[in-house]
């Protein structure tokens, strides 16, 4: 039986729709994650758009697009974090964007000053709720390293936070 080609689903369109739904679902949270990592909303939007483009291109080939997106955001945010100028502006920008209690603001400032991998561990573990395995995959290290990074970051934060 001949089937009109118009009745067949267009794989590209179908993938596009699925991705559009994925984008709508994940965009907001991904921006928040990138913002916590970079300290700048503008940078966060850039990072996520860039990461989303990467996910889009690989969408048909990857099993876990969400994890892929998370890894892409963490890796791209790392490049951003290398920019010292942004690092200097980070604290100010965090405070400009949201109203925080003074205690929370201090804590976030300290988190923003952590080395990048320690910051990723703190943000993804305590805000993102990621498992050690997920963090390890994003950072391309072993779970043991994640434990060590978390331990060092917490120790540093505890030391620096005013009682």
């Amino acid at each position, binding site marked *: 039986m001949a089937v009109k080609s118009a009745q067949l689903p267009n794989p*590209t369109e179908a993938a*596009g729709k699925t*991705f*559009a739904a994925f*984008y*709508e679902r994940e*965009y*907001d949270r991904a*921006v*928040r994650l990138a*913002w*916590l990592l970079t300290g700048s*909303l*503008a940078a966060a*939007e*850039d990072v996520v*758009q*860039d990461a*989303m*483009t990467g996910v*889009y*291109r690989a969408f048909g080939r990857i099993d876990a697009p969400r994890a892929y997106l998370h890894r892409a955001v963490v890796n791209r945010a790392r490049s951003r974090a290398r*920019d010292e*100028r*942004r690092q200097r502006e980070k604290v100010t920008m*965090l405070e400009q*964007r*949201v*109203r*925080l*209690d003074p*205690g*929370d603001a201090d*804590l*976030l400032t300290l*988190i923003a000053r952590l080395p990048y991998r320690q910051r990723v561990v*703190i*943000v993804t573990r*305590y*805000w993102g709720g990621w498992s050690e395995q997920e963090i390890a995959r994003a950072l391309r290290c072993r779970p043991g390293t994640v434990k060590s990074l978390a331990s060092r970051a*917490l120790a540093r*934060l*505890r030391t620096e*936070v005013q009682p």
Partner: protein
Amino acid sequence: MTDPFEARLQRALDHAARQLEVPTIPWREPARSGRRRPRLERLGPPAGAAVAVIVVVLAVAVIGHRHPVSGAAAPNPLAHAPAAAFQPPLTPPELNLILAAYRRVAADHRDCRGLSGPELTQGTPSSRVRSLFSTLRGPPTPDGRLRQVLENERGPALIPGAEFYVNQIHRARTAFGGTFYLIPAGNITGQRGVPARCQAEQVTALKARLARAKASVRARVLAAQRRYLAYMRYLALHPEGVCAAWLGPGVGNAANLMCGAMANFERWGIMADASSALNGTPVFWTVVPDVVSTVTLRFVPGGTPLRHPVTITVRPLGNVVVAVVPHGRFGSRGSWADQFPATIVLRDRGGQLVRRTTVTPNMPTLCGFGC
């Protein structure tokens, strides 16, 4: 989680992230990788070869741009373009004299102004323009605020006589809290054809002005005027281009508007090596066609605060490239010179070289034309 410190950590992060207002940006499908895109080398003959780049910065931002001079490693489709296609280098005194002659003639003959025309129109870009920029192939995404800026600032403050297709505004990407838009333009310079006698009148007016000048000065300035008038004729014949605007996040924020003729893209692959400050951050930004997948900028010491060369590679998003200038000293010397990369390398998806441009210090710049 029993540890009170960890609980506090979680609460602080939750609280901050929850308060953040994330602007909604709809998904725009990027160009498909399988699609055959026109390489710059495959473009048609260099019909539009004008190098007309105009940087207009509205509100509080500052003007800055310069034209790259290419040392093309890839075949250059405009290698044999007429010299008139590109902005000639003129000294400020030369330009002042030439413009004075123009104003003198335009005052006496209205049809010699060549700048009248609708600034905002409902036209559509040519297929040639749309084939180069995937952002322009999607549905328009007009922004009322941008349109308001264009409408309010039109006239001499903007580009008199330029013709923006305001129903074809396309959102390209966000950066530094603002949004970039692409706006195709039927005429980016405002230059329109004028009767042939007008240029002869301008030559006569300049000769009269230089009547008592030294013969060598007179010859030099008249030669400069010939090059300038040839360039103006070329602009009038090949006016089409693309403009890009960055609109800051709030009312009263700076807006950048930059336009480039199609010749810019065909010869150099970019609109211009423009630099600016977006939300206070010094950046290099420009527009590239779909064929460009990566843009590598090399900043070198010498005229910059850098001690060592710095190379940055960025990917365009929505045809717009934005890179933070590494030394980040925008405006600190009152000069834009240290903002510019020494070389700009464009590559396609396969890593093949599209264009390599060497930015030379003696290139013609807008400021070289009188600012």
